[in-house]
């Protein structure tokens, strides 16, 4: 229960920051995607199931609030959360560089997937999609050292219930 509350708090704060503080931080028409960073951090600090579920919830709120076709971000963030949660088993290194690369790659992939879906629905242009990916990844790399440790610490402090078997 406490874990659910912590994850919900992370979600709400990330969405608020994304739509207020970060909305003004535009370079070349693109802003960082704090939400995908939160999804990556939660998935890294927990597991694939939590990552996917947190990704779905975050994406759904983003879709509803940011006037996107409902389900698009949910789809992309679910896949991102699951992928990161699966990969984390193989990431044994504690070197920050590894985590930076992972966060950057996840940002690039999610921005491009999201853009691709919107392009398919004719809601965006190829030029905007192609440009957004690397720029979002770059901004997120700058933001990662600020966001990642906070979310990580919060999520890890309240671990999931010990595995129950029945």
């Amino acid at each position, binding site marked *: 229960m406490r874990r659910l509350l912590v994850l919900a708090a992370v979600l709400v704060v990330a969405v608020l*920051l994304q739509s207020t503080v970060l909305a003004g931080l535009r370079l070349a028409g693109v802003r960082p995607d704090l939400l995908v960073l939160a999804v990556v951090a939660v998935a890294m600090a927990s597991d*694939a199931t939590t990552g996917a579920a947190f990704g779905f919830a975050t994406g759904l709120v983003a879709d509803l609030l940011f006037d996107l076709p409902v389900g698009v971000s949910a789809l992309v963030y679910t896949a991102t959360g699951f992928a990161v949660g699966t990969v984390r088993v193989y990431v044994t290194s504690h070197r920050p560089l590894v985590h930076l690369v992972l966060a950057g790659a996840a940002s690039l992939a999610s921005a491009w997937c999201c853009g691709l879906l919107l392009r398919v629905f004719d809601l965006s*242009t190829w030029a905007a999609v192609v440009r957004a990916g690397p720029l979002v990844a770059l901004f997120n790399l700058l933001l990662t050292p600020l966001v990642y440790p906070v979310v990580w610490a919060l999520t890890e402090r309240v671990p999931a219930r010990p595995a129950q078997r029945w």
Partner: protein
Amino acid sequence: MYERPRRARTVLALLLAAAIVLITIDFRQPDGGPTDRLQRLAIAVFGPLQRGASAVASPVGDLFGGVAELAGLRRENRRLEAEVARLRAQERTYADVLGENRRLRGALGMAKRCGCRTVGASVVASSGSNFQLSVTVDAGSRQGVKRDMAVVDADGLVGRVTQVTADYATVLLVTDPSSGIAATLARGKAPGIVKGSGAQLLSFQPVRAGTAVRRGDPVVTQAYQGSVFPAGLPIGVVERVDPAGAASLVPRVAVRPYAALGALDVVAIVVERPAPPVRGS
């Protein structure tokens, strides 16, 4: 932490399926469908939070903005010096420029002269997505705001209302790639559509081939049947014209919007367009 991979895969499959179902519902539903109601709920819940966060965060955002701008200040200074020199040279033609300005304003039919009833609103948040250019404003159905109403700032058209709750509304900006607005050239009244491109410039697509468009032509909104969109709201000014050629029948026209879309704070929503003049009076 131990995790059973099969359970994780089941959860993933369920969530992905749910997302795809949501996308399908969202595209097929009429106005007021299930995801529409969800969306209104989300805006109603997050609206007040966003307003609070905006109030706290705006100085922080300004600080970041200020640091980012520092690098450009030196160049800006040089540019301004050059501009002062140029303006001094132009001073002698000031009277002519003033006259032209007045004529231009007359042609535009500024929002003031439109005589529309408007509702003022502040921008409380902007879309966090990189692919959707929209803002949330703090006026909703309680203030008489409805879908598809025109939103303007002091300089020109900002966008169109796409979602309304009791106290908040979402406005799709004219620069969004999915935005399309009926428009005419203020000079010559050639009809067309103004579309967003995701970048700063809009594109004006004339309906008729052979429409003559010149750089500097103002573009204004056009009223259409059954909408509250008033005619003659200034949208922008033609900045570049690629003449019709082998690639397209109509000229490609880039339009620079008048509205300060990068730094919106206060907007007005046109809730009622002026009554048509009574015949015979």
